[in-house]
């Protein structure tokens, strides 16, 4: 038990919600998590009943605060980007949420690509299915009745926060991922919205992440077992929160988060210059919590590919990661991890792009496991190189997320990236970022620098060992299957 005031951070992820209760000084007082399942009503569609988020969040919050009887002074929700939920004026969802994995809006992405260059540049990002703007345009075209009923088009964390406070709002970090946000002027883009047949009237007001959105309403308070009236901050996108919580010590640092997917994030020093620097789709530029911006390179097939290998090859994570300690060998099969589809340049692969190449009869269980780790590490390096091309060049990397803790895996990644890796202060980086935002919002921290001082200093966990063979194998992967799934599969 502690009498220190506590901050509650909620991270609404793709497959689960994580809740962290933390003191001002960084002591963890409680944790909770709860999962939910996505649905695929049609091939390429990915949805979820948004009330599942509320159900899971209630359970996870109750777990996190169960043994805490001190004061909780603030709450923030951070979460998955790009999704869309049309709601009525009170925030009731009019249909299941369409999440970032959804691929239905390919025609609308084509419409985006026909927008005037000036508008597209101001978006800072290449259009892609699954982002809120194209999804909203799809909704207007294909579900006009629902679209006409909608008062708000909300993003996932904003929907959840509205359930707690009754207030509709968004923030720059999430808004910058919608393709309806003008990165140059930091506001909704009326012209883009109109050109796509939408209206910014449907989008909630944009407010800074650390503003108080409202007070926890009694009904929500009772559901979450929290005191009514608790201040709820605006919050941020999950990656923006993790960049904040990584507390990067200098300008040439980056964050690599490994979960279901993998994301490289590097703060940019000159936002104005960065806008429009890479509209290829290989990287994204999003607003950061502190008012700046960061560049993101994301891979979809990280945890999802390794999890598939563990389950299909009837092994366990320890056995998988143990193969990271094996020596590099020229004859190991090459693993192409594009199981769930992947994006590069302006193209994307459908699911079913995974492969093992170079399989001989001499290869055994362990060789296939080892090659899976290599393939995922190669995919992450290719994304790092995308980041380089867009001007982001980290020299030191904080590694975070559930899939980052095994020392052998850390060493293998360090060898493939040829970069030193550092531990993060929290294993739940985004949720930790949420508590920092809550602390700034309620005045427990004087500013962002004060907040990040409460996190642990990154510690070196793996130094790169030069390996010619690792480099050669990466180049083989990069120039061949890594570039795109084997041609034969593109039917």
């Amino acid at each position, binding site marked *: 038990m502690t009498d220190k005031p506590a901050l509650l951070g909620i991270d609404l992820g793709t497959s689960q919600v994580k809740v962290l209760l933390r003191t001002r000084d960084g002591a963890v007082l409680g944790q909770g998590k709860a999962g939910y399942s996505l649905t695929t009503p049609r091939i390429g569609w990915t949805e979820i009943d948004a009330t599942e988020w509320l159900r899971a969040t209630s359970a996870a919050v109750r777990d996190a605060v169960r043994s805490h009887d001190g004061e909780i002074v603030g709450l923030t929700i951070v979460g998955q980007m790009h999704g869309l939920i049309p709601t009525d004026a009170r925030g009731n969802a009019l249909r299941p949420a369409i999440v970032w994995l959804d691929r239905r809006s390919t025609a609308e992405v084509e419409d985006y690509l026909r927008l005037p260059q000036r508008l597209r540049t101001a978006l800072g990002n290449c259009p892609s299915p699954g982002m809120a703007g194209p999804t909203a345009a799809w909704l207007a075209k294909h579900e006009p009745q629902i679209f006409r009923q909608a008062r708000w088009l909300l993003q996932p964390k904003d929907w959840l926060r509205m359930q707690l406070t009754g207030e509709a709002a968004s923030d720059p970090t999430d808004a910058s991922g919608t393709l309806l946000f003008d990165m140059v002027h930091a506001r909704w883009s009326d012209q883009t919205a109109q050109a796509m047949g939408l209206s910014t009237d449907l989008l909630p007001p944009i407010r800074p992440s650390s503003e108080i959105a409202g007070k926890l309403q009694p009904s929500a308070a009772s559901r979450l077992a929290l005191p009514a009236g608790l201040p709820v901050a605006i919050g941020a996108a999950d990656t923006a929160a993790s960049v904040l919580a990584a507390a990067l010590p200098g300008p040439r640092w980056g964050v690599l988060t490994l979960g279901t997917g993998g994301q490289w994030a590097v703060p940019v020093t000159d936002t104005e210059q960065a806008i429009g620097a890479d509209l290829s789709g290989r990287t994204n530029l999003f607003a950061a919590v502190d008012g700046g911006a960061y560049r993101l390179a994301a891979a979809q097939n990280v945890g999802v590919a390794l999890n598939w290998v563990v389950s299909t090859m*009837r092994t366990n994570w320890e056995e998988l990661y143990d193969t990271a300690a094996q020596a590099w060998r020229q004859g190991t099969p090459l693993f*192409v991890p594009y199981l769930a589809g992947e994006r590069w340049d302006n193209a994307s692969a459908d699911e079913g792009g995974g492969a*093992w190449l170079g399989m001989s*009869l001499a290869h055994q269980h362990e060789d*296939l496991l080892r090659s899976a780790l290599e393939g995922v590490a190669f995919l992450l390096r290719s994304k790092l190189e995308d980041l380089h091309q867009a001007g982001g060049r980290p020299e030191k990397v904080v590694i975070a997320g559930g899939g980052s803790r095994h020392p052998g895996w850390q060493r293998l990644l360090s060898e493939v990236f040829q970069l030193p890796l550092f531990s993060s202060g929290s294993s739940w980086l985004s949720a930790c970022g949420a508590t920092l935002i809550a602390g700034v919002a309620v005045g427990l921290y004087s500013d962002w620098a004060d907040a990040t001082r409460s996190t642990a200093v990154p510690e070196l966990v793996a130094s790169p060992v030069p390996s010619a063979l690792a480099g050669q194998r990466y180049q083989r992967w990069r120039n061949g299957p890594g570039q795109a799934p*084997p041609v034969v599969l593109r039917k």
Partner: protein
Amino acid sequence: MPDATDVLCGVDIGTTHIKVALVTLSGTLLSVAKADTPVTTDGYGPCHDPDDVRATAEQVMRQAQQEGGVRAPIAAIGVTSVGEEGVPLGPRSELLYPAIAWYERRSSDEERSWSAGHEADELFSVTGLHKDLGFTIFKWLWLKSVQPSVWSRCRTWLGLADYVTWRWTGQCGMSVSHASRTAMFDLAKFRWREDWAAELLPHGVDVLPPLHEAGTTVGVLRPGVIPGLMLADEVPVVATGLDHLVGAYAAGVTRPGQVLDSMGTAEALIEPVPSSYLEHAHPSIGMDFGAGILPGTHIAIAGLASGAGVAGMLKALGAGTLPEQRRLESEAMALGPGSDGLTYVPPRIRNEAPGALLGHKVSHSAVHLYRAVVEGWALAADNAMQELGDRDRLQEVVCIGGGSNSALWVRVKASLLGREVYCLRTPEIVAVGAALLAGQAPEGPGPVTDWNPSTSVISPIPEWVPLYRSLSRDFMRAASSIHPSACSRIYP
């Protein structure tokens, strides 16, 4: 309990097991027994100690006689074995080196240097064989290069079956079909290639044993040489042939238009071909040619590593036990053709080209992987079989070996062919074939009069046939991207 006046004994020295079958002259299979083939190593790779092999064979013969309650004496013995492996004997007939396993690939350097000194098509035009590191000639070159002191003392070379026969009879001899797998056999002239032997062997062609047609006696069992076995007075030990061909003989696959699909650790597709076929044979045909079982006949043969490949995938998937394999098999059967988009392109062993598994998605499970691997090997075999002539000429496909017990595998094969295939259910058919050939020896008790193997007919699944026709095209597209080929045939 079976009582018979005379019993024929067949011994099959296989890659993983040594098997024995006891058969009456009236064609009744009295007893079968088997034991693991003992494996050793010479520090470079797997080998067989021929005396361990012989001792195990003798133990299995006793087991077959005792456990089968067979009270009649053995009157003739036929021995068959895997091809391409053998042992060198020294000046005093001492064993100089163990038998390097047939599937060993250690001699790539030697193969390269041999190829540098010979015309590209020379091997095929003389022996009917494509270059393959497994052939005996390349094992000789390896011994010459890496074990020169052993090789210089070699006075006699015997195949694995021949060594066992020699230890039992004191006589040397090799079947012509085994000889035709050494890559030192002139297939047109049916004799050893003497100029190559002079170039390669320490004492030229004298090192090589006399050639025997299948069903001829190499020697008579020396008294007391196999203790604990009930034997007739004069027991001829008979040359048989390459194990797959001996199986084909027992399965009745002896004429053109019939194909034996021997689904062992290695899968061999064998068709007896008219000798005139050889006149038009060109190396671009993927098949190897060799001597058949019946005197003066020829066969076309394609080898794939299917059995080892499927077993390897089962092991990689953690399905080590029989119940787990059965469960996987039954779930894979229910999955339907195409493994939900997962495609396995098997490796090409001959040119050391690895294969690939393509099209993974998150919803795929171990069941999909297993079915894809079985389908991949079946499609590769189907591709190899196309070289055996047009489908109209193909009259009958007979499957033998452990792989033919997989209901999924044979159903896929039948559906690919669009016709029934026959699976022999007589156990240890290769050992049975060796026993049948033992009955052909003039010195023996006489031939088997009425041999009817137990067979089941596997029909194609009608809905699968058109699906596999289309999947076969997809497979070829995938396979030719992994194994670039100038023609429609990729395998073997």
